[in-house]
């Protein structure tokens, strides 16, 4: 799938069908890896991760007949670049009602890139308790890690250049979006 020389403009790397199949596969992988869904908490990273976590929950619940607890994590205040930027990202809320103590937390995000978001999410999670283990599920792994972090469940691995941007658009984000993952040159209007 990875194009060696992406054409100018936007390149679609996943369409709605792809995303649907990937999420179904990852849901099954999560169940398999954890021998069921009994001790799992799905935690979506704001914003894209939340929608993906919800979709994974629906699939896992359908297969296992469970009601897997969900959470939302905002990593803004744990970013390592927060003090070097002038414009501040809007801070969102972190809500994990079920708690994470002794549970298996599956962190869900749309794109895995430098690993810094996951690093921040790991720090944030530790402030909420001591989970039994943490696993990471992402829709797209675009490589170019800057930290020793890996994903346990990967939708699609894509080779990208540093000046490229990968975005996942989901219908839940509004504005008449269709499910898709796109790659484009930074600076060009995605």
């Amino acid at each position, binding site marked *: 799938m990875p194009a060696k020389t992406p054409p100018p403009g936007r390149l679609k790397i996943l369409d709605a069908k792809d995303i649907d199949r990937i999420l179904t596969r990852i849901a099954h992988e999560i169940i398999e890896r954890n021998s069921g869904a009994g001790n799992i908490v799905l935690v979506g990273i704001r914003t894209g991760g939340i929608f993906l976590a919800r979709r994974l929950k629906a699939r896992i619940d359908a297969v296992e007949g469970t009601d897997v607890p969900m959470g939302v994590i*905002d*990593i803004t205040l744990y970013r390592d670049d927060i003090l070097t930027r002038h*414009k501040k990202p*809007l801070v969102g809320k972190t809500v994990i009602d079920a708690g994470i103590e002794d549970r298996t937390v599956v962190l869900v995000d749309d794109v895995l890139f430098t690993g810094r978001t996951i690093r921040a999410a790991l720090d944030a999670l530790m402030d909420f308790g001591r989970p039994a283990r943490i696993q990471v599920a992402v829709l797209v792994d675009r490589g170019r890690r800057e930290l020793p972090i890996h994903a346990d469940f990967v939708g699609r691995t894509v080779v990208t250049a540093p000046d490229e941007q990968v975005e996942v658009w989901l219908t839940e984000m509004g504005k008449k979006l269709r499910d898709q993952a796109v790659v484009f040159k930074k600076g060009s209007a995605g």
Partner: protein
Amino acid sequence: MKTDKGPATFGHKHLLGIEQLAAEDITLIMETADSFKEISTRTIKKVPALRGKTVINLFYEPSTRTRTSFEIAEKRLSADSINIAVSTSAVVKGESLKDTVKTLMAMQPDIIVMRHQNGGAPHFLTQIVDASVINAGDGIHEHPTQALLDLFTIIEKKQAVKGLVVTIAGDIAHSRVARSNILCLAKMGATVRVAGPPTMIPAGIQKMGARVFHRFEEACQDADVVMMLRLQTERQAEGLFSTLREYNRLWGLSARMLRYAKKDAIVMHPGPMNRGVEIDPEIADGSRSVILDQVENGIAVRMAVLYLLSGGTGDITE
């Protein structure tokens, strides 16, 4: 790394007063504070956002709640905070404000939170320091974080502030809380009434966007919020009113007086309270009092202000 609404721009280096803020700035502070409030409910009430930043709380006037509130806010953001109270500092040995501040600057603070008995002192400070300055009350001028936490509490209880009738009663003339609140509420679309004895209503207060009442009953009529101010008994020597008993009868918030306000009206007070003077104890502790919510919200609002002012250059990219 995306947020719900993209990067937010708070185009101010200092928070000197509500006067300099636009309605959008105030809304941004409210939204940010709403997220910060959740942090105080965690087991570990701390985030690393201001790690490595130094904040000096420079208080030239006695203050317990404002200073403590700022200090907790700083600590919950992981900043290193230092308190300097005037009574224990070199100021009592005759050091000037400028010299004190120059000494402090050698310690390279990033933010200075200042309370001073003279209006304009924090503004003066911005001219001699590189740090961000937050006004924690200057003379009878402004007390912006108090107005912001009051607004946050009103929005929390009433969902919105636009169109609400807010009555501010007491010694308006000597109250920086009143001035900041009038400015803030007017900017956010509330109808502001001020009430107090004529000796305590400053000339020209109408220009700030408030309507003046000289009878408390009329001022309370159909109000959504009744905000009482502390009677500054230390100024009693000026002869602004005759006796505390008379003041309480005419301007104290009692159950009888509160009946004029709407049934679901909330009661506010910035503290510290003179129970039995400007507010009756059963009202202060009653079900409509949100006074303790104000204290709690003060931490979240101050965290939001500290976060938004904590400098840096460049933009958030991804």
